């Protein structure tokens, strides 16, 4: 009798877990279906080639060329990676290898704090400091590709630092000592043995950072200038895919609205590609063990 009750209890728990699991799957599926069902017809109407490679975005004139925004997103992400990744990896090295214990734990707190700051605050900070600085140096108002890259570069730091640090830390002690015992300095050991040994984790951190950068909206809108044109210089205004959706969704209707959903489709494809890359890296990490 008692056993039976235990069994029932077990079954109920199992079902509960199953339902929770299903909810997240349903969420992912319904978002996907929703975006595609709204976006695909718009792409069909506009024409895939015109939509992706068209250089003019004028919803009122019926022109829906997304190319400037695709380029904008890629440029901004590239810029963020160029700024954030080297700084992030070197900070991770500092925290895990060189800093005294107390300093390291203080740094880790700071990085967690950095991760917790709302993106609108980043944007506001950029608007108040970086944008005027760029205006001062390059002119043109300061809202620019460069400003967005710098802000995003800072925003991806926590992702790069914490994942890289974990993977550098998990390099076996024996490898460090093996290098030191041959007469290598700490720095030589870090660059020749530790970073190469931790590379799959570091690469994974970069892919996650790219995902974060490409998906960021609020901070970018505040500093990027948002002109739907292909930028020719670092100090020129740009608009990203996410900004495109967020800026116009409020007043769009009809084909315009659906074109914004189609923008979401393109974004979705980017994210899926990144996830596949990430899965590959994670697989490699597993193989090393």
């Amino acid at each position: 009798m008692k056993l039976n009750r235990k069994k029932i209890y077990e079954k109920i728990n199992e079902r509960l877990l199953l339902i929770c699991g299903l909810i997240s799957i349903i969420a992912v599926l319904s978002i996907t279906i929703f975006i595609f069902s709204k976006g695909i017809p718009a792409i069909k109407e506009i024409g895939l080639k015109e939509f992706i490679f068209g250089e003019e975005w004028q919803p009122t004139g019926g022109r829906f060329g997304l190319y400037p925004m695709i380029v904008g997103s890629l440029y901004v992400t590239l810029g963020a990676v160029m700024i954030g990744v080297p700084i992030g990896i070197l900070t991770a090295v500092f925290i895990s290898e060189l800093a005294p214990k107390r300093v390291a734990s203080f740094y880790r707190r700071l990085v967690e704090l950095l991760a917790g700051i709302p993106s609108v605050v980043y944007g506001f900070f950029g608007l108040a400091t970086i944008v005027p600085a760029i205006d001062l140096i390059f002119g043109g108002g300061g809202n620019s590709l460069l400003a967005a890259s710098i802000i995003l570069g800072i925003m991806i730091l926590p992702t790069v630092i914490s994942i890289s640090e974990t993977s550098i830390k998990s390099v076996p002690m024996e490898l460090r000592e093996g290098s030191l015992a041959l007469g290598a300095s700490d720095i030589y050991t870090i660059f020749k043995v530790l970073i190469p040994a931790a590379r799959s984790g570091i690469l994974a951190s970069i892919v996650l950072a790219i995902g974060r950068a490409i998906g960021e909206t609020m901070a970018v809108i505040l500093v990027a200038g948002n002109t739907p044109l292909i930028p020719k210089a670092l100090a020129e205004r740009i608009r990203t895919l996410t900004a495109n959706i967020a800026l116009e969704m409020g007043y769009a209707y009809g084909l315009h609205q659906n074109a914004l959903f189609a923008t979401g489709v393109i974004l979705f494809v980017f994210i899926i590609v990144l996830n596949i890359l990430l899965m590959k890296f994670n697989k490699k990490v597993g193989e090393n063990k």
Partner: protein
Amino acid sequence: MMMAKIDVTNLNLCYDKVKVLYSINMMFTANSVTALIGPSGCGKTSFLRTLNRLNDTVPGVKVDGTIKLDGLNIYKDMDEIKLRKKVGMVFQKPNPFPMNIYDNVAYGPKIHGITNKKILNEIVERSLKQAFLWDEVKDRLSKSALSLSGGQQQRLCIARALAVEPEVILMDEPTSALDPIATSKIEELILKLKESYTVIIVTHSMQQAARISDFTGFFLLGNLVEYKETKKLFKSPDDDRTKGYINGIFG
């Protein structure tokens, strides 16, 4: 009496406030194999790691006493980089770097400034031959070192240590992770290395100490209990504790 290669006087070692070694006095002669035996936690590995100053990397470690290599104090008269070039080390677990076989062996010489490709090729070949590994790997030098078997990896690590042309080789239980066949290959190699190097080996296996070493030191609780020729130590130990340990009464 042969000239001392390494001369240790009054060595004490603490980790934070825990004392690990108590005034060790020991002398190692060139071109000999010395085995350090004793139960786990007796301080023999800590002792070995003071000889190339690898303990320096542990925070809170304190060493006093003097260790001289060819008459030079290793804590005062040279930096650790110079010391570690002369005193190589092989670890308990094979620890090849995650790179190819060639780069593993060339790693040490590159640190010490050798960049000439031809010279590096020569060093790699010579070191691998010395470690009896050349014939097994000469056709796949560009393959990852991690693709080798455990025994091969350990011989690669020995080749890597030999590549910087050390004078002394420290070995920390180099065969404890290997099967008997790989072990006998490494032992054979150690006997060969004795001709040109001074070998100091920490081992848990008394048979191994008896097979390959000329001198044996028995450590217990941070003290060097007895130290003399291996044959004498195993045949007629002076100390009752040594007798007890080699007869398997404790340890």
